[in-house]
C-alpha cells in the first residue's frame, strides 16, 4: 500500500472511525466468497423490487388513476386508494422483503455480516 504522505493530492484516507461490527476482514471475504455472484443476485433483486415500487407509485397511483377510479374498492375509488393508502403499505412490504431476501443471498454467497 502506498503511504498517504506520498500523495498529498489525494485525501482518500480511511480510518474506519465508524466501521460496522464484523467478524472477518474484507480482504479475506473478497478472496474467499463469490462476491460477483452476490452482486449480480443483488442487482437482479433490486430490478424486480424497484419495478414494483415504480408500478404502484407511478403507474397505479398516477398514470392509471382515472381508469382505476371507476372501480369501487371498500368504499374507496381504487386509484385514489392506491395513491393515498395502498402504495404506502406496499413500500413497507418491499423494504422488509428486501431485508429478508438479502439475508438469504448474503448467506448463499458467503458475504453476510453475522458474527
Amino acid at each position: 500500500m502506498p503511504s498517504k504522505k506520498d500523495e498529498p493530492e489525494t485525501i482518500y484516507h480511511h480510518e474506519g472511525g465508524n466501521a460496522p461490527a464484523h467478524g472477518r476482514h474484507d480482504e479475506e471475504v473478497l478472496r474467499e466468497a463469490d462476491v460477483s455472484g452476490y452482486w449480480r443476485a443483488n442487482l437482479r433483486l433490486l430490478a424486480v423490487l424497484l419495478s414494483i415500487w415504480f408500478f404502484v407509485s407511478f403507474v397505479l397511483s398516477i398514470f392509471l388513476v382515472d381508469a382505476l377510479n371507476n372501480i369501487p374498492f371498500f368504499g374507496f375509488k381504487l386509484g385514489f386508494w392506491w395513491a393515498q393508502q395502498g402504495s404506502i403499505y406496499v413500500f413497507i412490504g418491499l423494504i422488509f422483503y428486501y431485508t429478508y431476501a438479502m439475508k438469504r443471498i448474503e448467506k448463499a454467497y458467503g458475504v453476510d455480516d453475522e458474527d
Partner: protein
Amino acid sequence: MDDLIETQNLTYLFVGLSFALYIGIAIWARAGSTSEFYVAGGGVHPIANGMATAADWMSAASFISMAGIIAFAGYDGSVYLLGWTGGYVLLALLLAPYLRKFGQFTVPDFIGERYYSRVARIVAVVCLIFVSFTYVAGQMRGVGIVFSRFLEVDIDLGVLIGMGVVFVYAVLGGMKGITYTQVAQYCVLIFAYMVPAIFISILITGVPVPQLGLGAMVADGSGLSVLAKLDATLVDLGFTAYTQASKTTIDIFAITFALMVGTAGLPHVIVRFFTVPKVSDARLSAGYALIFIALLYTTAPAVAAFARLNFIDTVHNTAYAEAPGWFKNWESLGLIGWRDKNNDGVIQYAAGSAFQGKPAFENDAGASGERMLSNATSEGANEVYADRDIFVLANPEIANLPGWVIALVAAGGLAAALSTAAGLLLVISTAISHDLMKKTFRSDISDKQELLYARIAAAAAICVAGWFGINPPGFVAQVVAFAFGLAAASLFPAILMGIFWKRMNKEGAIAGMVSGLAFTFLYIVFFKFVSPGLNTSDHWLFGISPEGIGTVGMVLNFVIAYGVSLMTSAPPEEVQDLVDDIRIPSGARVAHQH
C-alpha cells in the same frame, strides 16, 4: 371560561413534562467522543433508530400542515403521501446499507472519499448546508407558532424557549442525546396525532380505525361513504371532486418523483443510518422507520377528509351568530376570515377566494359581530377564508374533544418541530466541525478539540436557526418544499453512482452536482422570485412546476456526470477497491487502516 383555563393549564403541564423528559434523556445520554456525538457510537438498535428516524423525518409540516394541505388539495395531496414515504424504499434499497458499510460519519465524508477530492467534499458541504438551513428555519417558526397559539406567549419568546431546549440536548448529547430524545418525541407525537384522529373517525363513521374510516359510510343515515359524500358536496359548491386530480399528470409525476428522491438524499435522514451496528441493521431500520412514519401518513388522509367534511357541515349555511366557538377563536387569531358578501348574516362556503390576499383585519366589528376586513372582495359566492394550518390543531375543538386532547396536540406539534430541528442542526454542525475543520482545514486537531468545535458549531447553528425563526424571510415557507428538489438534483445522483458505477470519477461527480443544483436553484428562483407572473404551466419546462423541477435537475445531473466521467480518466485503483468494499456487507475495511 373555566374550561379554557383548565385546557391551558393542562397544556403547560404536558409541554413542561415532555420538555423535562427530553432534557433528562439528554443528561443521561451525554456524548463523550466524536463518534458518540456524530453517530451515537454506531450502536443504536434498529427499532430505536427507526423511531428516531421517524421523529427526525416528521417535521412541524408533517404534523401540523400536511393533513390541512390534503384536505384542500384532495387527490393532488397524494404527491406528499407518496413522495415522503416512497423515498424510504430508495433509501433502504439503494443507499443506506452501502453508506453504513462505508463506516464514516457524514454524507460529505462519503462524497469526499469516494471522489478522492476536497472540492467534491466542499461542494457536498455546501449542498448540505443549503438544504438543511432552508428546512430548519421553518421548524423554529413552527415551535414559535405552537407556543403562541396554545400557551399565549409571544412567537419570539416561543422560538427562544425552543432554542433553549434544543441547545441543551443537541450541544450536550450530540447524536446520542438526539437519538434517544427523538425516540421519546416519536411516542409523544404519534400518540398526539392518533388520539384525536380515532375520536373523529368514530364520531363521523363509527369506525375506530381512521384508515378504514376513510372508506366507511358516514354515520348520518345518508348511505354515502365519506369520499362519495365529500365528492358530491364539493362538486355542489363548485370545487373539483375530492378524488379528482386538478394538476396535470406530468406535474404530479415530477413532484412525486422529486419528493421521493429528495427524501432519499436528505443528509439528516441518511446520517441516521450511520448509527446502527451492522449493514443488515441499516436495511431493517429503514423498514421500521417507514412503519412508524406510515402510521401517521396513512392516518393523515383520513384526518384530511374528515376535517374537510366537518368544516363544510358546521360552517356552510350556518348563521354567524350560531357558528361554533372554534370558528371565532381562530378568527380572533387571524387564521379564519369571513366577509358577509350578501349581508344575510349566514356563512356561505364555496369555491374561489372570499377576498384578495391574506386577511387584513380592521379594528371594528361587522353587523353580525365578525371581524371586518380591509381586503378587496373577490368575485364568487365564497365568504370564508381558512388557513390550512389550522385543521390538525383545530380538529380536537371542531370535534368537541376534551381539553387534555388539545393539550396533547400542542405537545405533539412541539415534539415534531423540535426533533426535526435537532436532527438538522446536528448535520449542519457535523459538516462544519468534521468536514470543514477536521478534514479540510485543520487535520491536526485532536478528537477532544474536534468535539469542542462540534459543540460550538451546534450552538452557532441553533442561534442562526433561531434568528431565522424570529425574523423569517418572507420566502421561508415556500423554500422548505424546494429543499427536496435541491437534494434530489445534487446529492442523490452523486451518492447513487458512487455506489453502483465504479467508473464514476471526481470530475463527473462535481460537474453533475454543480449543474443539477444550479439548474434547479435557478429555475425555482426565476419562477418564484424573479418573474412570479410567469409561474404558470404555459411557461414551465415540459409543463413541470418549480416544485417538481428537481426531477429534471436529477436527470441532468446523471447525464452530465455520466458524460464527463467517460471523457475523463478512471478513478484510482484504491477508490475502485473502496467501491468493492462497500458493496459487501461483511468484514471491516482493514485493508485501508493505518
